[in-house]
């Protein structure tokens, strides 16, 4: 089957556009409010939580792990506890697992079935993470995808693709870039991008 013709990005949904889905979403909320199965304040609180999430939280975890090997060990052993230790919200129940990229092993994360992602620590997943081509090709051609995203790895580096589930979500600790010696934790955190914590980008120090 040639999927190519079917895998357009979603042209109907763009910023500033008002797709039919928007009216449908509002009507659905209205019906559910009237039926008393949801309360407006709970929905508003959910939106507030979602917009408050950002990759800055994940970056703080990575920066601390770079700066403090003992913290890194705790992060790798139990990411949820490590997040709580820094006063960060690890989100509701699903288990967050941190994995470390090294000179020998590179991890990248996908959710082939849908979009599972450590939203509490990284914010909502980017559109490409949820897209059909990424979900296919991260598994069939991970090195090709990494090249497309600008990550060049030597042949001696093992690539591990982690497929997320509703119960386990992954946070990649990228390699600390050369030239970052002596930086403060805040400076280190500023080097840590969202994509590097998905494993499709490598932090640069300059």
């Amino acid at each position, binding site marked *: 089957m040639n999927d190519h013709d079917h895998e357009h990005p979603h042209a109907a949904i763009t910023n500033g556009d008002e797709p039919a889905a928007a009216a449908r979403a509002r009507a659905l909320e209205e019906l559910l409010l009237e039926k008393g199965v949801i309360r407006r304040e709970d929905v508003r609180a*959910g939106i507030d939580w979602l917009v408050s999430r950002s990759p800055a939280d994940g970056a703080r975890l990575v920066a601390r792990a770079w700066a403090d090997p003992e913290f890194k060990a705790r992060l790798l052993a139990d990411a949820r506890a490590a997040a709580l230790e820094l006063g960060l919200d690890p989100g509701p129940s699903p288990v967050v697992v941190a994995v470390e990229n090294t000179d020998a092993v590179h991890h990248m994360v996908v959710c082939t079935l849908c979009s599972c992602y450590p939203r509490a620590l990284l914010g909502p997943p980017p559109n*490409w993470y949820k897209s059909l081509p990424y979900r296919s090709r991260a598994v*069939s051609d991970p090195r090709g995808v990494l090249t497309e995203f600008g990550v060049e790895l030597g042949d001696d580096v093992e690539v591990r693709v982690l497929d997320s589930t509703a119960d386990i979500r992954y946070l990649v600790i990228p390699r600390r870039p050369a030239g970052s010696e002596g930086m403060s934790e805040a400076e280190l955190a500023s080097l840590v991008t969202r994509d590097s914590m998905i494993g499709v980008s490598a932090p640069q120090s300059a």
Partner: protein
Amino acid sequence: MHDRGGRPTDAPIDRSEHELADWELLTDAVVGTLGRNGLMNVDELRRGIESMPPDEYEHASYYERWLYAIETILGEKGVLAPGELDRRLGK
């Protein structure tokens, strides 16, 4: 259809950034609220999404799939009557 891992494709990955629109945030938060209220958990959300006809699935945007799942699951549970949302929308 939903199980994309390794499916052969040469389609490019569109890496443009997209800030979630208000209705997308709303849909996400409604799902979260339904979950906390015990009306639809994440597995039911997924089953609802995966019950979409393949052609619709491929063409729907991400949160359009979520809307489809909410309607499907809450319809099964009798929270929404058949066609109730369409009638509200004047269709």
